[in-house]
């Protein structure tokens, strides 16, 4: 299988802080659904931001589609859904405006809107939508450039069970039917274990990398934090 991301001996600390990530190495392959888990403050968001080139000053190597991060320019191949926080609740932008700001073609816009059933929302303010609807819009924005790699940071946090299942179904469909690699950070272990192909457990260092089944059985030893 082709490698989409390769991370080698990645270490990182925020300015003046202690190491948040320590010698982390792993790969992400074409078409796989990778779940990333770990306790709060484990460095999951940091890891994702490093892979996306949003943080500077790390040690080690990161390759995207075979190119070293510094030289990587084809950002349309990557879609990113950030942790749904820090959006001003007075921001007036409408869903339609958000989507047209990222979608090149009218056709593509229509496809996306149909795919995610967003017709009703287009003329509404993003901030007036429910959490689940907002997450759909963010997903739509990330999908707009038809990325081969989709990276999502806790896309189901704070959603009810139906919205969670809806999002998970969409992601599963995307990874199975379109060959996209999906990388998802989540504390929602149930959803990850029933949808992901592979699990990465992080707590500053890489604690586990492997199949879902095995992850499930040794999880208690890894953290003891995620038991329901």
């Amino acid at each position, binding site marked *: 299988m082709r490698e989409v991301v390769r991370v080698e001996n990645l270490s990182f600390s925020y300015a003046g802080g202690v190491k948040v990530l320590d010698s982390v190495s792993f790969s992400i392959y074409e078409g796989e659904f990778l779940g990333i888990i770990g306790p709060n403050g484990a460095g999951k968001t940091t890891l994702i931001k490093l892979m*996306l080139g949003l943080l500077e000053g790390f040690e080690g190597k990161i390759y995207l589609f075979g190119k070293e991060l510094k030289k990587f320019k084809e950002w*349309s191949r990557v879609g990113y859904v950030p942790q749904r926080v820090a959006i001003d609740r007075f921001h007036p932008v409408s869903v339609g405006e958000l989507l047209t700001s990222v979608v090149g073609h009218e056709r593509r816009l229509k496809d996306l809107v149909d795919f995610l059933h967003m017709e009703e929302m287009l003329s*509404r303010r993003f901030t007036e939508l429910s959490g689940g609807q907002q997450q759909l819009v963010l997903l739509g924005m990330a999908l707009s450039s038809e990325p081969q790699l989709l990276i999502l940071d806790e896309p189901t946090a704070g959603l009810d069970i139906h919205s969670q299942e809806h999002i998970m179904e969409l992601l599963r469909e995307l990874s199975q039917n379109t060959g996209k690699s999906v990388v998802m950070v989540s504390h929602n272990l149930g959803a990850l274990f029933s949808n992901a192909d592979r699990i990465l457990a992080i707590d500053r260092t890489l604690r586990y990398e492997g199949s879902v089944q095995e992850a499930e059985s040794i999880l208690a030893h890894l953290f003891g934090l995620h038991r329901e």
Partner: protein
Amino acid sequence: MELLQYDFVQRGLLAGVLIALSSSLVGVFLILRRLAFLGAGLSHFAFGGVALAVLLGVEPFLFSGILTLGVANLIELLRRKRRIGGDVSLAIVFSGGVALAVVLLSLSEGFREDVFSYLFGNVLIVSPYELYLSTGVFLITCAFLLLNFKSLLLMSFNEEMAKVRGIKVMVLNHLFVSLASLVIIVSIKAVGIILASSFAVIPAAAGIAVAKSLRGSLILSALISVLSTVSGILISLHFDLAPGGSIVMVMIAAFTLVVVFKRLI
């Protein structure tokens, strides 16, 4: 209304409308980037610059304009490096500028009046040169916003999503604060240092509070701003009042009306 025939009135109205348009459009993005205080901070900083320029005998607008441009970019740099939040740097710059002006003013009495004229400004005494300046800034504003609308929209929504899409966020941020300082500098001429920020904040706040989209906010902000400016100037002529204060009071009335009206429907 025979006053409308006078050159200075026509010039004042035109300059006022151009400044109103520029600052109301830039103001929407300022507020969305949580830099609503930028106008107040930079214009008061410019006060120190003007005092220094008058004391040194150089052109005050150019001199304080360049200083202000520099400090605006410094604030953006500090914000980016996450050293100091924009609101904190602005508070420091605000008081620093005023402190400098006060100290310089205490040095000599001779130039006080020159400096004080900048505190309140007067859109009815703009020179042709200042009208060109306002036109230039207006054209730059329109070009910048039209060319970068999608990027600015996305950046105001979430900078990291913008970065991942390959948008040159850092460059655009610096260009944007530079544009904002130009706009502030020209509005000092119209309404003075103390009120300059109102042009960038009040109409934009109304637009953001009421409209259903970013585009709608921009249009509403521009509309309120232009209508308030024109009616403020006419009111000031008719009743012989200070134009700057009249414009701002009309703006606040319009803001209140719009927001109350929105509540009712």
